[in-house]
């Protein structure tokens, strides 16, 4: 990247995205960014986990990235040089706790002594632990297994597990195959355990090209608007990327909450001033929670999280 042109647009930008039905994926599907920045070469790099995004940002290989709130919280706790510039989606019903009907589980309390699977280090992992905490269940009384989604499905088929906190399309397959949902991320977020897919920008990049970040947020807003106006059209564009059909894509998008940058200026979300960012608190709480669970070592002060929120590009 050419830093001498500070303030203007970069020649080339690398965006690390994940296949999640949110505004960024729509931007990619519709080529909105390419349209907006005809002179910028945009490299789209697909990632599968927040862990790899963290690595790639640290390596300076991507400028903008998308990761779950949990990996981002871990990243900020470890002082990764990036900042949150956008919330691509708030996880709603897309990640839920599915239980086997026959296992006789009515609430998180009943999970005691059962086998529950979830991909460790993911937002689902966090949600599961939060659900247990909210119900006052000691996680040590539950057998929590680290499985990737496709392995969760395999284990489910074999009846090796009783419940799983996971996302689509695995989640849908579980409910089709004798499963019911008892807790969703939506419900948890209402109780304060918010999980989200977060846009992060390399600090250096944000300093060098604030204009680009700002305009890119504009493009994301455009996508959110497009989705709200014509959800079918959006679903149609997303379907092939999600390896599914239009109806299913539409259903999947509905399980996530898309927010415009304006809405994100609310104190509940990124906020408009560093000290009043609700999301900084969410990240801090997430980190604290992980630390309490001995999943990470220690967490920094709230102000370090606040410093890692980049509100400048949220359009008024």
């Amino acid at each position, binding site marked *: 990247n050419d830093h001498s042109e500070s303030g203007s647009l970069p020649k080339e930008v690398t965006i690390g995205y994940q296949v999640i039905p949110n505004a960024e994926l729509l931007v990619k599907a519709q080529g909105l960014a390419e349209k907006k920045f005809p002179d910028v070469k945009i490299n789209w790099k697909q990632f*599968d986990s927040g862990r790899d995004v963290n690595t790639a940002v640290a390596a*300076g290989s991507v400028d903008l990235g998308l990761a779950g709130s949990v990996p981002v919280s871990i990243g900020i706790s470890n002082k990764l040089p990036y900042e949150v510039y956008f919330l691509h989606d708030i996880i709603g019903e897309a990640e839920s706790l599915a239980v086997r009907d026959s296992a006789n589980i009515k609430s998180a309390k009943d999970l005691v002594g059962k086998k529950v699977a979830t991909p460790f280090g993911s937002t689902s992992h966090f949600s599961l632990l939060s659900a247990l905490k909210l119900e006052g269940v000691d996680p040590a009384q539950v057998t929590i297994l680290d499985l990737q989604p496709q392995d969760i499905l395999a284990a489910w088929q074999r009846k090796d597990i009783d419940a799983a906190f996971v996302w689509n399309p695995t989640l849908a397959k579980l409910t089709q195959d004798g499963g019911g949902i008892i807790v969703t991320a939506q419900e948890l977020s209402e109780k304060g355990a918010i999980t989200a897919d977060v846009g992060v920008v390399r600090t250096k990049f944000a300093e060098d090209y604030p204009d680009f970040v700002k305009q890119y947020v504009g493009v994301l807003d455009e996508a959110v608007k497009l989705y709200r106006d014509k959800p079918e059209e959006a679903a149609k564009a997303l379907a092939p990327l999600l390896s599914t059909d239009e109806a299913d894509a539409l259903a999947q998008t509905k399980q996530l909450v898309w927010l415009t940058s304006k809405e994100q200026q609310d104190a509940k979300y990124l906020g408009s001033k560093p000290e009043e960012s609700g999301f900084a608190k969410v990240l801090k709480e997430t980190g604290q929670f992980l630390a309490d669970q001995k999943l990470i070592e220690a967490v920094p002060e709230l102000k370090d999280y606040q410093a890692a929120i980049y509100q400048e590009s949220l359009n008024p």
Partner: protein
Amino acid sequence: MRIRSWNGWLSLLSVFLLLSLWWLSTALNWVNPLFVPSPQKVWGAFVDICREGYKGSPLASHIGESLKRLALAFFLAIVTAIPLGLASGYSPKVRALIDPLIEFYRPLPPLAYYTLLVLWLGIGDASKIALLFLAAFAPLYIAVVAGVARIPRDRILAARSLGASRGKAFLYVIFPSCLPDIFTGIRTAMGMTYTTLVAAEMVAAVSGMGWMVLDASKFLRSDVIFVGILLMGLIAVLLDLLVRWLAKTQVPWNGKE
């Protein structure tokens, strides 16, 4: 000649048996179609991918990308592991110097150090090729060292008495003597690189056979997974046949000394 083609039929038979087993187990619903799709469905997915590509890239480019990465990594492994292996088989000093390092990295799971490679080499092809290279290097190196160890000492002495300097003996005697081992090493290394392909294409790839399988598995597209696996397997078998054919024509004296 008669024996040969008879054996060819045996091979076909065993492949055929496997295919029938597959077909039967899906037709009779022995296995969950979610994980083991029927041959028809896999064929359908294959035709589809051939026609329309997978996630924006045609099939040929997926194959091409993977093969490019494999070929580069493999080339690097060959030009480094063979000379180093020969050298450390020949000279105990070289061995003492480099063996500990190789012995140490060799057993490390790529998934454990891939992050470091990404950190150093970025998310481009460089880190992927480095990972594949590391996977190929160790088995080739070990095979070559073992090959040198088994060369009859007298053969090397004969060469030295004929005026070969240590360097020339290396090139003209040690190397050809090890050819059978080198070919075995190449075959093992090729397998090893190949098995690392999915891991290598896990980070920030948007094409490649490994990525295709991985991506499909995320969306539970088992038909695509099978297409990917079958493709990888077939290409690997073809490459392996090539190496075996080379070994046979290049080392006619093997087992006849």
